[in-house]
């Protein structure tokens, strides 16, 4: 149905041409779902844009053939392409909210497409649009018709995007990371919906994702991409259980899954024995009845409603929960960036909540509690080089001489595995993993006893995530730090944490050892979370 041969895409950039896609071959049979996996920047999106010829300015198809149902898409006139887009081949994108025109009613946006492809007239458009919305299981579709994107939840927006894509009954659907940015439970609902619709309508589909687990669960075949090339194609189960290419193997290894250990995420070549850490029974941090109420525009927002938990010396505690449940707010209070409305933060026997957050910067205990932020890019000053960023706490908190600082920064760089020559780069010149390391180096620069990690790997590729998780585990063992690890990914939490605290709506619903909570969740919400996580097939440990 669709076959792509030797596709090459080149971008003109400041530093000369960039070959984003370097000769790939793909084909999709009728009724088949093809998964394309690969890490960030491997050329997945560019490939999909090339198929529809909607590359950004500066990008062009350099070579290759794209044939869809006998039509040469590479050379088809623009007019014909415009007819094909949306009617024959359509596409859904990641981040549903920004994929919709923010100032146009969602119903009208669907109508625009319907009328563009003569699927509706002015008179019938509304009814048809509502029909399309109902098809993606939007309840009260007639009412939602007049809603603007900002009035809908993320999952709802993604359904609209899907409705938009499917409105004209295309025969091929391309989904580019359709669930990134969505909650884990919503993610499952959306993916289930997409696969159901594909099956019902007998469409073909290409699902692009960096999540191998997701691909394996929903696709018939998988193509693995790396650096603009397809390194391996095969049936999903085969690719997963018996990867042939070394890169595929690494990817499969790095995907967190049931029964994996933290070291097993790393490629076999670099695996070292896991260092052990032994939590002591001494409590280091005891959070008691922590409450935070924000003065919102429409009344108070109870972000955290009385949370209590304990972290022992040398222990790692996971804090899990859906988006918006109050994880970040809790960690901000513990790290003393935010004043709690009430409650106590007992740290090494003293109540930190007594010192206002404003004054804590000059508090002697500042150095002992540090934090690694969720978004590494956002947490680095764009005007400061990596060295300058790592140096900052040394300068302010440790008050080292400039010679000593340079030595210490190098030492830290080595410790977190950041090549020294990268130290004078600016954040935008570093990769995600490198930025994460800079962030970690900065946080551990002053030897804190307690480190809060607020989703430190959420923005990273699986292989980098694996490296970072191992790095954290090693540091914990070497430096004897305690962690509070905030995450929404239960698999990851289980790998790293000794104990888990599950939050929902600002309250703790369950707490216990990682094993216990994962294997025998006592609260239905926990069970739901665990069920929603994609479960890739287990790899045969033959290779």
């Amino acid at each position: 149905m669709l076959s792509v041969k030797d596709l090459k895409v080149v971008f003109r950039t400041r530093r000369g041409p960039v070959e984003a896609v370097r000769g790939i071959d793909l084909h999709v049979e009728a009724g088949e779902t093809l998964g394309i996996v690969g890490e960030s920047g491997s050329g997945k999106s560019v490939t999909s844009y090339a198929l529809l010829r909607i590359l950004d300015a500066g990008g062009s198809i350099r070579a290759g053939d794209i044939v869809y149902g006998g039509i040469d898409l590479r050379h088809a006139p623009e007019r014909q392409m415009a007819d094909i887009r949306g009617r024959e081949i359509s596409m859904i994108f990641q981040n549903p909210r920004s994929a919709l025109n923010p100032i146009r009613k969602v119903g009208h946006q669907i109508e625009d497409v319907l009328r563009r492809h003569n699927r509706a007239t002015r008179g019938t458009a509304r009814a048809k649009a509502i029909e399309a919305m109902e098809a993606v299981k939007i309840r009260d579709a007639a009412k939602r018709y007049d809603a603007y994107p900002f009035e809908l939840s993320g999952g709802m927006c993604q359904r609209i995007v899907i409705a938009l894509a499917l409105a004209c009954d295309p025969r091929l659907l391309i989904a580019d990371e359709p669930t990134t940015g969505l909650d884990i439970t919503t993610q499952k609902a959306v993916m289930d919906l997409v696969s159901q619709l594909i099956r019902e309508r007998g469409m073909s589909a290409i699902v692009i994702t960096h999540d191998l687990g997701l691909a394996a669960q929903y696709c018939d075949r998988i193509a693995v991409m790396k650096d603009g090339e397809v390194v391996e194609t095969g049936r999903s189960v085969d690719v997963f259980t018996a990867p042939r290419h070394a890169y595929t193997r690494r990817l499969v290894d790095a995907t967190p899954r049931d029964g994996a250990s933290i070291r097993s995420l790393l490629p076999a070549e670099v695996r070292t024995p896991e260092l052990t850490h032994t939590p002591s029974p001494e409590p280091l941090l005891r959070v008691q009845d922590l409450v935070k109420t924000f003065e919102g525009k429409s009344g108070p927002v109870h972000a955290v409603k009385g949370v209590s938990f304990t972290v022992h010396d040398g222990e790692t505690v996971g804090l899990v929960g859906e988006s918006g449940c109050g994880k970040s707010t809790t960690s901000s209070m513990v790290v003393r960036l935010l004043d709690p409305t009430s409650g106590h933060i007992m740290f090494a026997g003293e109540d930190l909540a007594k010192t206002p957050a404003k004054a804590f910067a000059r508090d002697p205990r500042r150095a002992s509690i540090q934090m690694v932020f969720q978004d590494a890019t956002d947490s680095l000053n764009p005007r400061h080089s990596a060295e300058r960023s790592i140096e900052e706490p040394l300068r302010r908190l440790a008050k080292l001489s400039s010679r000593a600082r340079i030595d210490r920064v190098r030492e830290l760089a080595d410790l977190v595995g950041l090549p020294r020559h990268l130290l004078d780069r600016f954040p935008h010149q570093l990769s995600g993993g490198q930025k994460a390391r800079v962030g970690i180096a900065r946080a551990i620069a002053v030897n804190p006893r307690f480190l809060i990690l607020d989703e430190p790997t959420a923005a990273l590729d699986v292989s980098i995530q694996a490296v970072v998780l191992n790095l954290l585990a090693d540091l914990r063992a070497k430096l004897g730090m305690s962690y509070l690890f905030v995450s929404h990914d239960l698999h990851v939490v289980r790998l790293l944490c000794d104990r888990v605290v599950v939050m929902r709506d600002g309250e703790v619903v369950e707490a216990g050892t990682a094993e216990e909570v994962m294997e025998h969740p006592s609260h239905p919400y926990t069970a739901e979370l665990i069920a929603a996580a994609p479960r890739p097939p287990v790899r045969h440990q033959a290779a």
Partner: protein
Amino acid sequence: MSDATAPAPARQSTLGHIGYVLRDNPVTLVAFLMFALLIVLAFFGPMLAPYDPLASNASRALEPPSWDHWFGTDNLGRDILSRVIVATRLDLTISVAAVALSFIAGSVLGAVAGYWGGWVDAGLSRCLDTIMAFPLFVLAMGIVAAMGNTVENIVYATAIINLPFYARLVRAEVNIRRNAGFALAAKLSGNSDARVLALHIFPNALPPMMVQVSLNLGWAILNAAGLSFIGLGVRPPTAEWGIMVAEGANFIVSGEWWVALFPGMALVLAVFTFNLLGDGLRDMVDPRRRT
């Protein structure tokens, strides 16, 4: 992408970066060349001017451009070329001083309001609104009329009417960054609020401010010229482009176009240069533009 495969672009030197910005955009290059010319004229103008810009010569009044007087002479027989050249320094001084003043004051006020918010912010915003509620040129006129038309007062008036633009811009830029990760990280590193604001957040507001600065430099010159046009500008016989145009304007209809045209062209050229400079300046101070 993993560390090993990450392309490792070498860090560019600052000069190399400036060179790139200039090569990348021909318009910016032209603007910078003209800017260099203006600077040279401002510094060495009095040495370069062929005649004394203040010396009158009634017998050669209102002569059209000739080999003696490239730009002709004005109604007192003064050499227009010399006056245009010498005026560069004063005009640049007025605009640079005014912009510097409003830049500093606006930055401080805007940063404080944007960072702490609350009633400081509300109070300041209302004050700025009040200033903006005046047609700004008229406000400048009022200030100069009330305080007297000296160069300093023109600078103050121009600074006051520019102030809201900086304050608002900085306020907005600071506001979106006050809870950015790097600001929080800086606090964790032991920086007090004031330090975070001054050393971490504020410098990041610089790129958009550079555009504003360059626009305002041009605008400040126009403003001074406008004040001169209605008789509230700098004092004669000081050479200043605005006054020269304003005076020359009366001669256009009688055919002595050169009296207004050349200073006018100098004025237009300078403002033009400043206006074009903005994007280039922004690209230069923005580290993200370096690759």
